[in-house]
């Protein structure tokens, strides 16, 4: 007989067969239960001394949470990714590869292949400081969730800011408009800085999307950050500052100043707030320069 590592735990794992059953179990056991997807994050936490709750509701067998599909008929078309999709499955998916290459780039920087084979996109959005969240926020992503009030689509930033205790993510919805704004040019970027080349927690993850008018003016700016020390969020002051700015060297220099003035990150044992602030300023300056370089207005 094998002793579980954590014999004191008497955790029941519920292999539910439908989303309704999952929700039902969650409502039944409330804070005595958690959803478990790939379990990579929960197991990590358990080894660090946070035990499993008495009930785990496994999402592994729910057909609704599987699959990736293009919803072109919708009013605003989107790519629908099942919450239970493993990160590595996302990496291999032709639709994601062709339409959301930055997402591919971001996922490649999450953990390492063995973890990505088990870890899911739903788990990444739910545990708190997932590296994909800043990028998906910049994409204006939504999630379709089920809770005691029924199933509905809500913007991701709402979900992460006020997650209802029991809500179950079914899909992640990526609007196609975020990568293809029709007439308007878009410029997007994602950067994760860690303490070594790969397989590291993030000191800073930053994502941005600028929608440009024909004369290289930023008509919409989305800018988000996150790190192991900081929950993902929009940087509204900087977004507002960028709104209406024209891609020029002055803007590149200006954004540096704005970041140095307005961004207030945290400090941990390995990097100071000052460092985080400066690299954000540097990266954004460089990205504005790059956008300027690539804008068709300047190419012509």
């Amino acid at each position, binding site marked *: 007989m094998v*002793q*579980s590592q954590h014999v004191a735990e008497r955790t029941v794992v519920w292999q539910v067969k439908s989303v309704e059953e999952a929700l039902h179990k969650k409502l039944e056991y409330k804070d005595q239960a958690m959803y478990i997807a790939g*379990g990579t994050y929960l197991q990590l936490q358990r080894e660090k001394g946070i035990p499993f709750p008495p009930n785990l509701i*496994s999402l592994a067998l729910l057909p609704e949470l599987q699959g990736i599909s293009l919803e072109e008929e919708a009013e605003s078309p989107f790519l629908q990714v099942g919450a239970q999709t493993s990160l590595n*499955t996302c990496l291999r998916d032709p639709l994601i590869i062709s339409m959301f290459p930055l997402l591919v780039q971001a996922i490649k920087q999450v953990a*390492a292949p063995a973890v990505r084979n088990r870890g899911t996109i739903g788990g990444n959005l739910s545990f708190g400081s997932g590296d994909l969240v800043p990028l998906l926020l910049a994409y204006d992503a939504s999630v379709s969730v089920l809770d005691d009030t029924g199933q509905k689509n809500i913007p991701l930033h709402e979900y992460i800011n006020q997650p209802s205790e029991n809500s179950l993510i079914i899909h992640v919805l990526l609007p196609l408009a975020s990568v293809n704004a029709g007439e308007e040019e878009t410029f997007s970027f994602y950067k994760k800085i860690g303490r070594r080349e790969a397989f590291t927690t993030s000191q800073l993850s930053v994502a941005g999307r600028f929608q440009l008018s024909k004369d290289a003016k930023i008509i919409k700016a989305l800018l988000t950050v996150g790190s192991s020390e900081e929950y993902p969020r929009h940087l509204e002051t900087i977004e507002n500052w960028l709104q209406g700015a024209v891609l020029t060297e002055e803007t590149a220099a200006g954004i540096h100043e704005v970041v140095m003035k307005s961004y207030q990150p945290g400090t941990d044992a390995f990097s100071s707030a000052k460092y985080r602030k400066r690299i954000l300023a540097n990266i954004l300056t460089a990205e504005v320069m790059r956008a300027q370089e690539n804008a068709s207005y300047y190419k012509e």
Partner: protein
Amino acid sequence: MAVNKQSVTVQEPGSVPGERTLSFSVNGRWQKVNATPTTRLVTILREELQLTGTKISCEIGRCGACSVWMDGELINSCLTLAYQVEGREITTIEGVGTLDKLDPVQEAFLQEGGFQCGYCTPGMIMAVKALVKERPDPSEEEVEEALAGNLCRCTGYTGIHRAVQRVVKDLS
């Protein structure tokens, strides 16, 4: 991720928590093991099945010493729970080659000095095999991506790079 076709009930509603019989395949043989649903796969392999080729070093998914395959995909056995393994096929280093008949990846590690103390080696070999299965001719970048989760303290990785190159050459 492949969904398990067999319907699995780890815990019937209302039943008492505790051990259950878990059945899964290890290196091509079906095994039945008593374990709680939240027992880690690495514990089952090392302590119950005495398959100590799979190592432990960090137990939080950060080193790759415990890497095995589940249904042909690389996973960390320290992050994988018993209930997740039900009905699945696990491959460990013991299922990869034998003392008399080495797998080409093992042969390449031998020839090129892809190991020293050998403690990371079983996990590393599982990761390299997973890589060449998917990418028979990987670029340097792809090698680095595929092995990012497997730490080695002895070799500085250069011998491992050489081993991968040799496998690629031998297989082509």
